[in-house]
């Protein structure tokens, strides 16, 4: 009987056969295109055809001041967006974790920005940001902060900030929900013991909750960094990277080059830069995950 069971549980060929369709699909639609992107980046591929051009795309790209500006801008944009998501997400999670009436309703109500298609949510933001008729400009004008209509997406600095806020809006719910789940996983007896020792609410938060959820905070910072870096639709719908390039991040620039101008080669060179950066992020993330898992299994 043992023999029979062994044959049931150790059929490597069957295991692989079951995974094969999904694996093949991913290889065809994700892995192969990734390699193809690298190849294209060494060509001047366009709708007309392609020739091998060596490192020309890279040389042009790296020597252009504009491109360097785009990389810097991407990281500044990302830094503010991710920090705000984490801070607001943490505060939100603390508030929704409080044992008060209505919290289960609030927990559902935080989620819509996460679930709704970004492209539709952004139409709402386009309306809010409208310089003449939007509510934000309206409140500004009525309180005297603005002395007239103000198109938030029409000026370099305000467009930069406005796209960050919209991105934070999309990303915060998920961060909040994950922090909340982590907080509820903290063993209750830790709090009870601290309470008996006379620890204040503040102490309990900083000495128990925060250290306990640190692994999740780190994981979420990396994950939101990756998603924020990849963020395309938000900026594309609100500003298309404008005004005058003020919100053009790496992803937007890649898209514009490749599918706006049909310069596949140049776009591919940018996509390769994106891929390298993403691989670095992913490497960090996976190393960290492996470490956290190890720590957990050791305890």
């Amino acid at each position, binding site marked *: 009987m043992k023999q029979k*069971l062994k044959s*049931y*549980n*150790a059929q490597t060929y*069957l295991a692989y056969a*079951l*995974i094969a369709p*999904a694996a093949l699909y*991913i290889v065809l*639609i*994700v892995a192969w*295109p*990734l390699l193809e*992107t690298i190849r294209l980046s060494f060509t001047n591929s366009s709708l007309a055809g392609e020739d091998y051009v060596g490192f020309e795309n890279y040389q042009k790209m790296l020597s252009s001041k504009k491109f360097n500006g785009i990389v810097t801008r991407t990281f500044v944009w990302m830094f503010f967006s991710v920090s705000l998501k984490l801070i607001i997400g943490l505060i939100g999670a603390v*508030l929704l974790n409080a044992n*008060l009436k209505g919290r289960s309703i*609030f927990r*559902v109500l*935080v*989620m*819509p920005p996460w*679930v*709704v*298609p*970004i*492209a539709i*949510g952004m*139409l*709402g933001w386009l*309306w809010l940001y409208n310089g*003449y*008729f939007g*509510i934000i*400009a*309206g409140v500004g*004008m*009525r309180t005297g902060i603005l002395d007239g*209509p103000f198109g938030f997406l029409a000026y370099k600095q305000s467009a930069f900030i406005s796209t960050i806020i919209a991105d934070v809006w999309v990303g*915060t719910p998920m961060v909040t929900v*994950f922090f909340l*789940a982590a907080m509820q996983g903290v063993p209750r007896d830790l709090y*009870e013991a601290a*309470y008996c020792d006379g620890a204040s609410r503040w102490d309990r938060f900083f000495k128990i909750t925060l250290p306990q959820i640190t692994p999740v905070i780190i994981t979420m910072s990396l994950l939101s960094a990756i998603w924020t870096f*990849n963020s*395309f*639709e938000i900026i594309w719908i609100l500003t298309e990277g404008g005004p005058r390039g003020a919100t053009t991040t790496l*992803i937007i620039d*890649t*898209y514009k080059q490749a*599918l706006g101008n049909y310069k*596949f080669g140049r776009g591919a060179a940018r*996509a390769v830069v994106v*891929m390298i950066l*993403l*691989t670095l*992020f*992913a490497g960090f993330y*996976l190393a960290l*995950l492996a470490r956290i898992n190890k720590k*957990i299994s050791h305890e």
Partner: protein
Amino acid sequence: MNKYNTFEKILIYSGILVFMTFILLPFVEMFYASLRPLDHLFRSPYQFYSDDLSFWAYREMWNTVPMLGRYIFNSFFLATSVAVITLIFVIPAAYSYARFKFPFKNSSLYILLAINMFSGAVLLIPLYKVLRTFGLLNSYQAMIVPGVAFLIPTSIWLLKSYFEKIPIDLEEAAFVDGASRVQILRHIIAPLSTPGLVVVGIYAFIGAYAQQFLFAITFNQKKEYMPIPSGLYEFIGYQSVKWNEMMAASLVGIAPVLLVFIFLQKYIVEGLTAGAVKN
């Protein structure tokens, strides 16, 4: 220890109020705008009060954009197809990961996670060329094929954790009693994993519904295949934007997804957070 005094309660509730305003303001404004006549919306500075609110825009929008119904249908058709195809690929793979030990198991699972990080935008260039070569541009397939690929990784992780909850003893006992693999699958695994399949299916549906826009604007230019997120741009006219109708159509477009999510949010959130928040 969880008692709050009145001052603390006021503090927490006002914090929640501010937080919720940020999260919900766009939706509230969308809904309010959809109820107001266009000439009330086009007043500057913003008017907080309108006296003749109505659902007029919800009727008129079908005339302004005659294909609106088709766009909504397309969105559902695309998202359903993507979800079903994703499940077909994911079920055997997730079962295999949950049940068998084999070389490269863990490393391939991590590779799946890493794939999740490459967004569609990076892969669009070769995908565009592939779809063009196979003559799939401007068709439903142009949006379905890449859509499935980006949902497979997370879906495998999600479903794997559901399969792992089915005790292996059940299967082993049936196997020893002479049941075949197919019988085990049909009579033990399928019924026990139905809730998991539903959650993963819904996850894939919502994900597919959300990611349509990027694929639609890049790979499809035919109106008859357009999903609602890109169809909504038809409310932007040459001279002015019909904001009230656009907002009404947006809300009609997202309502079904939102409703499904609200009913199943508990399960979806549990499944998604379980991986990251393990104790």
